[in-house]
């Protein structure tokens, strides 16, 4: 019997239990007519019985799934065929693994003839334990259903129990996202710790020479100074991109909230939001193939030295354009959240529309706008595709926007692409870079959310 059929069978059993639970519970109201004598509606009793039938059985199957491989191997080793196996643990392990995959149908033929002899014992063991598990699960489902069905009484607090289980299921769902974040963070820390045991954190965080390919030597060797990367990231993501995105995003938000006719706004806002849905790889080749060559030609024509076809400017400008809808929609929200009484007050003083915007609306919306900008920065510095395609690989420390710089995300991609050994500092450096990026964006998001929240409280 395969797993999916077993699963389906248990669910069907659950449905049957639900039905019988309901039927029994709906009789209560006939015999107990006094108000409140029956605690819960029949439906809750039905779910109570169904959960008793399905829950323990599924839980058992999960545990069984983890426990049975060891039992199967033990059973296979106990067979007469196992006596010819070599004593060497490694050789034995590989034969067993091969035999197992043939037995479970993942592999067709064995390389080692010894494996072939182990296939039969494995097959017997697998089918034995599978049948055992299935029977146990079905019995458990029956037992749970019958036990809970017998427990059904008018005064049983089935509703309270179902409410609690619902709450726990929701809690579990929300925990999964949180635990995943913690897990990612933990794995980053673990790998970074291995990196920092090879390269000093001081050298990494404050060193100015990034040349990881040169590293093959003893501990303490330089080439992992990440400052040029941090600079490149800040230069592209937080400076050039923001110079593009903040004014354009803010002005478009002001126009859309204050000037645009409702019908124009109804068209314009979705179009702007579509920009946010364009895959970043599309922006990437737009930056690399269109913007970057144009900017280089322009720089050359006005005589700027060191103009590169992978300029910081190209990546930054395109990234800025990508961020515009983000800034615009955050600014839009915070301007719209300024009470209209504030705007009317200013207009009633005889202020013009632009005076009102400049002197009342923007200052009042500023915290929200700043929060939005911080979120935008945190997105920009974590953005990968555009910089991988349009920014260079040379770790330069330069403020010339026409020359090439590299970013943290570009280097992470660079370090992890191709065949890599997972114990060389070169590969592990990617985790350290990721950790720094993670911490910085986390902090930015925390600050931004706090600023936005404080601002919301002020007006609600």
């Amino acid at each position, binding site marked *: 019997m395969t797993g999916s059929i077993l699963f389906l069978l248990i669910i069907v059993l659950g449905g049957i239990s639900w039905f019988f639970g309901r039927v029994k519970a709906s009789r209560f109201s006939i015999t107990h007519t006094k108000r409140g004598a029956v605690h819960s509606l029949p439906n809750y009793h039905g779910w109570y019985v169904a959960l008793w039938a399905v829950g323990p059985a599924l839980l058992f199957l999960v545990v069984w799934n983890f426990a049975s491989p060891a039992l199967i191997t033990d059973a296979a080793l106990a067979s007469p065929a196992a006596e010819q196996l070599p004593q060497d643990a490694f050789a034995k392990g590989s034969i067993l693994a091969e035999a197992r995959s043939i037995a479970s149908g993942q592999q067709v033929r064995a390389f080692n003839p010894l494996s072939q002899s182990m296939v039969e014992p494995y097959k017997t063991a697998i089918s034995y334990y599978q049948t055992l598990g299935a029977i146990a699960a079905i019995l458990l489902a029956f037992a749970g259903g019958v036990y809970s069905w017998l427990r059904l009484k008018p005064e049983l607090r089935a509703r309270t129990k179902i409410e609690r289980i619902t709450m726990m299921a929701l809690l579990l769902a929300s925990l999964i996202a949180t635990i995943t974040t913690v897990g990612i963070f933990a794995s980053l820390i673990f790998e970074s710790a291995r990196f920092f045991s090879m390269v000093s954190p001081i050298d990494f965080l404050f060193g100015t020479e990034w040349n990881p390919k040169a590293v093959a030597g003893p501990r303490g060797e330089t080439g992992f100074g990440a400052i040029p990367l941090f600079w490149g990231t800040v230069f592209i993501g937080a400076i050039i991109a923001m110079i593009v995105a903040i004014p354009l995003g803010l002005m478009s938000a002001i126009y859309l909230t204050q000037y645009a006719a409702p019908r124009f706004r109804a068209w314009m806002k979705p179009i702007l939001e579509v920009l946010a849905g364009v895959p970043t790889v599309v922006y990437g080749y737009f930056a690399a193939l269109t913007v970057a060559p144009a900017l280089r030609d322009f720089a050359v024509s006005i005589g700027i030295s060191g103009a590169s076809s992978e300029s910081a400017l190209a990546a930054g400008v395109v990234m800025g354009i990508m961020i515009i809808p983000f800034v615009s929609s955050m600014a839009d929200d915070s301007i719209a959240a300024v009470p209209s009484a504030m705007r009317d*007050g200013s207009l009633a003083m005889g202020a013009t529309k632009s005076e009102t915007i400049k002197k009342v609306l923007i200052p009042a919306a500023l915290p929200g706008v700043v929060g939005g900008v911080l979120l935008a920065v945190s997105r920009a510095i974590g953005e990968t595709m555009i910089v991988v395609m349009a920014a260079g690989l040379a770790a330069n420390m330069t403020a010339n926007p026409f020359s090439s710089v590299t970013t943290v995300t570009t280097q992470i991609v660079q370090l992890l692409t191709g065949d890599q050994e997972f114990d060389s500092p070169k590969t592990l450096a990617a985790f350290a870079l990721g950790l720094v990026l993670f911490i910085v964006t986390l902090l930015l998001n925390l600050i931004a959310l706090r600023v936005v929240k404080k601002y919301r409280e002020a007006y609600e």
Partner: protein
Amino acid sequence: MTELLDSTSSSESSTMTESSAPAISAGDGPLKMTTRNVDVFYGDKQAINDVSIDVTMDNVTAFIGPSGCGKSTFLRCLNRMNDTIPIAKVTGDITLEGEDIYAPKMDVVQLRARVGMVFQKPNPFPKSIYDNIAYGPRIHGLASTKEDLDNIVETSLQRAGLWGEVQDRLQDSGTALSGGQQQRLCIARAIAVDPEVILMDEPCSALDPIATAKIEELIHELRGKYAIVIVTHNMQQAARVSQRTAFFHLGTLVEYGVTSDIFTNPTEEKTRDYITGRYG
């Protein structure tokens, strides 16, 4: 202007019927604003139907009526705040000192400097108390030096009866004041641009009784310096602070006259029903 003269000379009774010119008795001071046959439409819906009212310099004019009767809408015609609502359309004649305020050559910025407004909910700007008051004078260029501006701020706060309470903390945020203080700050802010008319749209509806009493006292003191129009849903307040009362119902002006007459001896049955609390 002929219409205006007619209205002042011909009317003896202090009440009016719809679409005729309202009555102005002797001793009311100069006529400040007149409105004739004003209609307001929100899209297809008519919110104000054929209203004619005169506002005089020395009287406080109160607009009363049940919710949704159009009294606030009408008030917002007087400084063209309805312009901010795209679907609103105003027809009829409204004049300030004989000038048609809806004429193309009328500058709405100038108009609003001359006809100030105080709103239902106190709406100080999220700036310091000083900057709140200085906001109007700055945008209209009323003060050339820092001393001028300081003087305007002090005078306005004094007139609004707030100077004593805030003179030591002019740099504190205007939003940190209590509700009543905020509302007086808004009145001071309106005074600071030296308007001729002050419109008040239910200025006490968000305030407690003590703050309300202070605002009413302030209205008494400001009377005569500015023509004041106040919208209120509190009839006792209208009786306390105003000399002229206009009763609105479903977008029409039912009755307009001397406040004491309206409250003791209304001509229209609707007014009597409203005042005695039969509906509204």
